[in-house]
């Protein structure tokens, strides 16, 4: 048994890498996968607060790399789920504290005990990004449907191809269906055509994501939000399931009833 190492990256900052990492970690763990989320953003750690685990950190990635603790001691277990862990970044150091080969070594050590290692990459295309991508088997590129984010995503896709990493898939985050409908936002097909890369998920803009960040409880924990459901779709696709791309709007009253009728008797997730 060997874990798949998946790096979540984007080039541009603020497009939702950490949100995606946290939610995919939760969604995969809810589906019975053993998951470690790894914060590779040394000096600007945030994955811990997204997951609501900030008060439970004792050791971090740099402590592991510099031999101050064993790898297992640095893993923070999420008590809400059976098998979700966080390997936090150091907050007081910078990117040069970790080298690409350290990341590879840490991931190799974790591979045998888990199903998925999700690495939250820092923004940019410098050392921190290279560290995050070095151990990756697969790469998820997060972008927003806007000019600067798509441009940076293209740059990152080029770098990943040049390094022979991949396969790489695209996640379009913070799409506003209403703006797309009136022509004021790049639509999915335009983004895919420009970037020439396969899509693995579309996350609609959803206020529930901000509420979740406030409380440290990612939206994927429940079925109540559009974004939460979209993250579960991605998790299922990662696990090899064919999941059609759902329309990005709240279901109407009748649709809810149909959905409820259909789900009766089916296994609930």
């Amino acid at each position: 048994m060997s874990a798949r190492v998946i790096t979540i990256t984007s080039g541009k900052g603020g497009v939702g890498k950490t949100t995606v990492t946290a939610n995919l970690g939760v969604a995969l763990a809810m589906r019975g996968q053993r998951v470690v989320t790894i914060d590779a953003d040394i000096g600007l750690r945030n994955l811990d607060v997204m997951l609501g685990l900030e008060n439970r950190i004792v050791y971090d990635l740099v402590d592991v790399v510099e031999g101050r603790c064993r790898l297992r001691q640095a893993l923070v277990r999420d008590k809400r789920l059976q098998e979700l862990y966080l390997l936090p970044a150091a907050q007081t150091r910078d990117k040069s504290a970790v080298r690409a080969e350290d990341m590879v070594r840490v991931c190799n050590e974790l591979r045998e005990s888990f199903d998925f290692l999700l690495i939250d990459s820092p923004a940019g295309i410098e050392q921190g990004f290279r560290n995050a991508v070095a151990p990756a088997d697969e790469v998820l590129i997060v972008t927003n449907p806007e000019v600067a984010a798509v441009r940076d995503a293209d740059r990152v896709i080029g770098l990943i191809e040049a390094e022979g990493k991949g396969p790489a898939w695209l996640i379009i985050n913070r799409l506003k269906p209403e703006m797309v409908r009136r022509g004021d936002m790049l639509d999915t097909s335009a983004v895919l055509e420009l970037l020439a890369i396969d899509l693995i998920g579309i996350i609609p803009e959803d206020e529930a994501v901000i509420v979740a960040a406030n409380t440290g409880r990612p939206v994927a924990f429940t079925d109540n939000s559009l974004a939460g459901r979209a993250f579960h779709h991605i998790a299922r696709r990662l696990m090899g399931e064919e999941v059609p791309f759902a329309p990005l709007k709240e279901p109407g009253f009748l649709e809810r009833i149909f959905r409820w009728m259909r789900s009766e008797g089916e296994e609930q997730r």
Partner: protein
Amino acid sequence: MKLLDRVLHRQEPPSGEIARERLRLVLAHDRANISPGLLEVLKDEIIAVISRHVPIDPEGVQVTYTEGPRVHRLVADIPLRTERRAQRR
């Protein structure tokens, strides 16, 4: 209201369409590592070299970058300066 706005005033395509067109150009230049500024430099040097041998119309010279499915190319369009009488013969 918005529709009326569009019909009466807006000549421009919706902003999503503008974003797509701008990105198409920006990505092409990024990928080839050829900036619009570099194209200008190339154009000036091409004019200098060619006009040493052949009379050309420097105003009409165009150097563009195009991305095809297989080959990306630099296209230089260089109009020659010819006398009308010479063409007639």
